[in-house]
């Protein structure tokens, strides 16, 4: 892991995005800033007018903002979970993936939290949650859990970044002061390496239950109420599975884009996408199992209030969304990813794109139909998102992409030292491990 080791020359492509910026980057950034400006104006109109500028109403008082909140928090499971699990499993193929995943988590968590602020009727009183919070409310569980996760995943992003930042400190002059501060005086000594490895190992273990708690707690916002098709015990695990599912899909999309834009084909090879596609396939099957169990249970029981919502989703007003969701989350990905011939990088991109769309629809389908069908007789209510809500949605996505792009300009998007470590010691360690699994060769005297 010596930063000035000769093998660094092999990986100069990873520092390239930091030292050179193409015109395309600035054009893309300008476009994203325009979208963010549009969202900004939309939010101003909401601050002045009130939430009436949205399509929300009585009884559908939660819509796009809450859907986006759940969706973004769900995607945050990409990073840390994948990175942590692959590290603990010592899967060698994780090396080009971990940093990309970790950045997704940190950026998208922040966006999820911001979407909740957008949803508040009185955002100027948001601090009331700090002063007067009640832990009986699932929203407080959310606040605590997401704060913990944001802290933990930022640390988990920063720790493996230290050796790379040290390389930048020694090689790159722009922003050198930033790299010098963040590098903590890293020199790659044995003592430092031991400390870092141990700390990363601890964080990898800590981050997993924290991540699981986050999306469970987000699901509890719905399942702790008494509303039909919300009050279900499956929600905790269901949301976590859905989060990992959408997270892997988002990760694949990010990987394909970064690979193309920064010419990193040598690092992100078809085999990496193949393994991730297999994980995505497994999550798709798992998601389908949970969904099937949930709806079968509701249908078989036939409780009248639940059936109203059930039929609204399957054959009623929400049927186009429901069946698109099943198509996007199950049929298309399974069809594409089950066969070696279609499980290419393009196939992975296609499947991931439909999954990301399908999972957004899934959040929407969980939230809105239940609210549209209150238990007591009520006038028919439809929810049509307004331009303001679309603008905020677009702005959130644009902010995510822009922040991600800025990160790639400051830090290597693929972990340099982990690639080097893979080259230098990865093969040896793997061989030792496999040797340990196999039976030991018997000595000649015991053969008789």
């Amino acid at each position: 892991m010596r930063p000035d080791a000769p093998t660094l020359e092999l990986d100069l492509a990873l520092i390239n995005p930091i030292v050179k910026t193409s015109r395309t980057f600035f054009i893309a950034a300008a476009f994203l800033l325009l979208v963010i400006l549009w969202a900004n104006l939309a939010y101003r109109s909401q601050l002045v007018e009130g939430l009436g500028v949205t399509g929300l109403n009585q009884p559908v008082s939660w819509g796009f903002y809450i859907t986006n909140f759940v969706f973004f928090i769900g995607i945050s499971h990409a990073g840390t979970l994948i990175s942590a699990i692959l590290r603990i499993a010592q899967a060698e193929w994780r090396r080009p993936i971990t940093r990309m995943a970790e950045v997704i988590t940190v950026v998208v968590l922040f966006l999820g939290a911001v979407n909740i602020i957008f949803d508040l009727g009185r955002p100027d009183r948001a601090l009331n949650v700090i002063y007067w919070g009640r832990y009986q409310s699932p929203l407080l569980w959310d606040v605590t859990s997401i704060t913990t996760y944001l802290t933990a995943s930022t640390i988990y992003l920063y720790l493996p970044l230290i050796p790379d930042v040290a390389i930048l400190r020694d090689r790159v002059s722009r922003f050198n002061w930033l790299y010098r501060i963040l590098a903590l005086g890293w020199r790659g000594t044995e003592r430092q390496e031991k400390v870092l490895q141990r700390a990363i190992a601890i964080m990898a273990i800590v981050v997993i239950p924290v991540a699981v708690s986050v999306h469970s707690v987000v699901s509890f916002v719905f399942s702790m109420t008494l509303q039909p098709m919300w009050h279900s015990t499956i929600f905790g695990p269901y949301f976590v599975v859905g989060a990992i599912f959408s997270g892997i899909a988002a990760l694949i999309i990010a990987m394909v884009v970064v690979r193309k834009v920064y010419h990193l084909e040598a690092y992100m090879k078809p085999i990496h996408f193949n393994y991730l596609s297999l994980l995505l396939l497994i999550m798709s099957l798992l998601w389908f199992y949970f969904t099937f169990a949930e709806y079968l249970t509701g249908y078989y029981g036939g409780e009248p209030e639940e059936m109203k919502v059930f039929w609204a989703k399957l054959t009623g007003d929400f049927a186009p969304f429901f069946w698109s969701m099943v198509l996007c989350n199950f049929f298309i990905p399974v069809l594409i990813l089950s066969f070696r011939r279609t499980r290419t990088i393009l196939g992975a991109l296609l499947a991931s794109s439909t999954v990301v769309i399908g999972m957004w629809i899934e959040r929407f389908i969980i939230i809105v139909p239940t609210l549209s069908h209150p238990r007591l007789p009520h006038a028919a209510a439809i929810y049509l998102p307004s331009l303001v809500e679309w603008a905020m949605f677009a702005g959130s996505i644009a902010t995510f992409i822009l922040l991600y792009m800025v990160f790639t300009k400051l830090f290597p998007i693929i972990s340099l030292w982990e690639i080097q470590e893979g080259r230098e010691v990865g093969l040896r360690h793997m061989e030792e491990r496999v040797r340990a699994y196999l039976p030991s060769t018997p000595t000649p005297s015991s053969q008789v």
Partner: protein
Amino acid sequence: MQRDPRWVLYVQNAGLFLFTVFVFGVIGWIIRLIRLSWTLDDSPSGSIAISLIAIPVFLLLLGVVNYVFWGIRGAVEKEDSQ
């Protein structure tokens, strides 16, 4: 390899200090909410249950950050002084 200039060390220390303030701020906040729920008799059990998990986790994170900070930066200073 040259040593980092003084100001870098100060900024790093400031960063660690801010993080420590943040962690104790969060812990203090959770304790405030426990006391509030106790005074108002508003299901204090929930607050205590959450604090039993959240506070140790934050202390653990503070511990890991300190371990890394002093372990990596401290190693440099020790080697330089040898």
